[in-house]
């Protein structure tokens, strides 16, 4: 299930984790300054997936001064995953406060308004660029 939990991201590394039933697909591209998460996240223990993501974000934010763009296509997060997302967003906010160029693009399935509401509840707590848009019919 979990292939690489607990690893510390090294400078310049990428992440490419396939989605599982309870964890989203994750792709992090160091050179592009791009992080994608897509799917649903409700693992019993969030470190299974979020430790890798958080350490990648930390490594990127401390190892470069380039922009970071996140694309989030998350249909559902359990409350532990919501907490873990906040750990990521707090780091982004700190970087934004220090002048970093950052953006979050939250994309939700138009049939799933709950995902839009989830995005809105994150967005209201931060002041970096956070765009929420519907995809699909």
């Amino acid at each position, binding site marked *: 299930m979990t292939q690489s939990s607990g690893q510390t991201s090294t400078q310049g590394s990428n992440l490419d984790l396939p989605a599982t039933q309870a964890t989203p697909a994750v792709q992090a591209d160091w050179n592009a300054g791009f992080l994608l998460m897509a799917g649903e996240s409700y693992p*019993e223990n969030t470190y299974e997936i979020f430790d890798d993501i958080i350490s990648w974000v930390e490594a990127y934010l401390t190892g470069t001064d380039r922009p970071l763009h996140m694309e989030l296509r998350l249909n559902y997060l359990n409350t532990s995953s919501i907490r873990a997302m906040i750990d990521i967003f707090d780091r982004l906010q700190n970087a934004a406060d220090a002048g970093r160029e950052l953006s979050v693009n939250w994309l939700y399935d138009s049939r799933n308004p709950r995902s839009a509401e989830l995005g809105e509840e994150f967005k209201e707590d931060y002041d970096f660029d956070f765009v929420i848009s519907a995809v699909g019919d």
Partner: protein
Amino acid sequence: MVPSLTTHRSLASLRDFFSTERILICFNGPISRTLISEIGAALKEHIESTRDCMTAAMDVFSVYIEMSQNIRHYSAARGYVEPEATATVVIAESGDGHYFVFAGNVVELEDGKALLERVEHLASLDKPQLKALYKEQLRQPRVEGAATGAGLGLIEVARKSSAPLQCSLDVLAAGRAFFTLRATI
């Protein structure tokens, strides 16, 4: 009442009971993380297939996941093994477009009493109050292995519910009790 399952007739009565109560899925026994996911995925797919919008499916799924994971976390924190480390979960249609999610588990009597109070408090709050409490709890430091658990997850369950949460406690032997939580989606 369902008679003993020693005859084939009794399975038919069990089926009748499920049908009358509009039970979609029920489970009683040791619940693994894989089983939680599999049941949840089947549940979500079923509800989605009957509706144009995913909202009901996502709300029932969310409540089911939080309740089941709360039970798993609680059993682990208390070091329970079978038969205590089991869950009873029932998801039913109300007949008027709503869904019921029931989840029950064995708890220490004192924990059960504290849970009753907590659920009754949550049941007394309106949606804006629940949101404020949720945001506050989100920022609280995590307490790993906290015995009562049921912090943020329980607030989330209350937020997704269309009616106040209901709960009960049936006292068992040896300082334990069976706690039942019912959410209406």
